[in-house]
């Protein structure tokens, strides 16, 4: 049996405070770009309620931006949802890594699952023992959840008050947001090649397919690269 979340008494108070402080710091930094999600989502034509529902229920930034981005470019909402799901698959891999560290079953696993995102996984994985990993996961996950949702509402209300998004360049902000999410992942030569290849495929099929579909078609590039690339190309070394 695992202990109650937050009641990990195995961690000395000083270290405990440090882990909680780090979690809050990540929460504040991530929450800040909840504002841009809220504004961009309303600019794409979603209502404030739909925007807030995305942050509460989907709660994984890249997927939310993807759904909104596909809708903004005139794509079918369900094509946006499909893109969001493809981006969400990485959270399943995070869960695999977290499961032995968190050691949760029953209702704890059912509730805790919603907090499995990039940030909480990163802050849990730096620890190799259960109590510290749980503390890092929960402090980061809860801080991001609260601030991401609050700032989404702020951004959505501000976006709504602004009116026509094109006047403020908010349509250009969507591309910038995707680039910001992509940037830290371009750490290997293979990743850069996949990014270029997927962008080229997507643009190549734009004239042939309905809006929203090009991104889904481009998913073949990372899938093929992952299956076929020689092991050596996946290394973390900088190629330059």
């Amino acid at each position: 049996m695992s202990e109650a979340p937050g009641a990990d008494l195995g961690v000395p108070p000083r270290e405990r405070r440090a882990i909680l402080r780090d979690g809050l710091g990540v929460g504040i930094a991530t929450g800040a770009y909840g504002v841009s999600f809220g504004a961009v989502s309303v600019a794409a034509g979603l209502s404030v309620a739909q925007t807030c529902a995305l942050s509460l229920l989907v709660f994984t930034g890249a997927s939310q931006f993807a759904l909104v981005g596909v809708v903004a470019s005139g794509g079918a909402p369900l094509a946006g949802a499909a893109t969001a799901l493809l981006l969400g698959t990485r959270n399943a891999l995070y869960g695999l890594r977290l499961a032995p560290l968190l050691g949760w079953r029953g209702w704890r696993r059912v509730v805790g699952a919603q907090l499995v995102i990039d940030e909480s996984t990163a802050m849990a994985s730096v620890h190799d023992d259960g109590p510290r990993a749980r503390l890092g996961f929960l402090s980061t996950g809860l801080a991001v959840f609260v601030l991401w949702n609050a700032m989404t509402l702020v951004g959505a209300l501000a976006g709504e008050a602004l009116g026509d998004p094109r006047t403020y360049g908010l349509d250009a902000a969507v591309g910038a947001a995707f680039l910001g999410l992509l940037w830290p992942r371009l750490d290997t030569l293979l990743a850069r090649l996949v990014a270029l290849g997927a962008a080229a495929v997507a643009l190549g099929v734009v004239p042939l397919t309905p809006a929203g579909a090009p991104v889904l078609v481009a998913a073949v590039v990372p899938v093929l690269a992952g299956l076929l690339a020689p092991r050596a190309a996946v290394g973390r070394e900088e190629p330059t």
Partner: protein
Amino acid sequence: MSGLWVAVLVAAGGCYLLKLAGLSVPSHLLEQPRVERVAALLPVGLLAALVAVQVVATSDGGLALDARALGLLVAAGLLLLRAPFLVVVFGAALVAALVRLL
């Protein structure tokens, strides 16, 4: 219910189930080098495709270089300077808006 609400709820249910599955599935089923590689590269490819379509595609199925592309260039410059996410996003928006005013 509107198509947008359906999409929101489909994405919500699916993304939650993916998270829960990761915590619940026996790890040997998915912890294989190929699966891990595809999972690591999938966000890279999808995000790059989203950048391209968002910035260059037009609503009538064509391609165009306009204020959005300039906004993206500014975003890339700000990322190179290690600017925070918020500065990158709103910097791109600001430049696109200014270009349209001219």
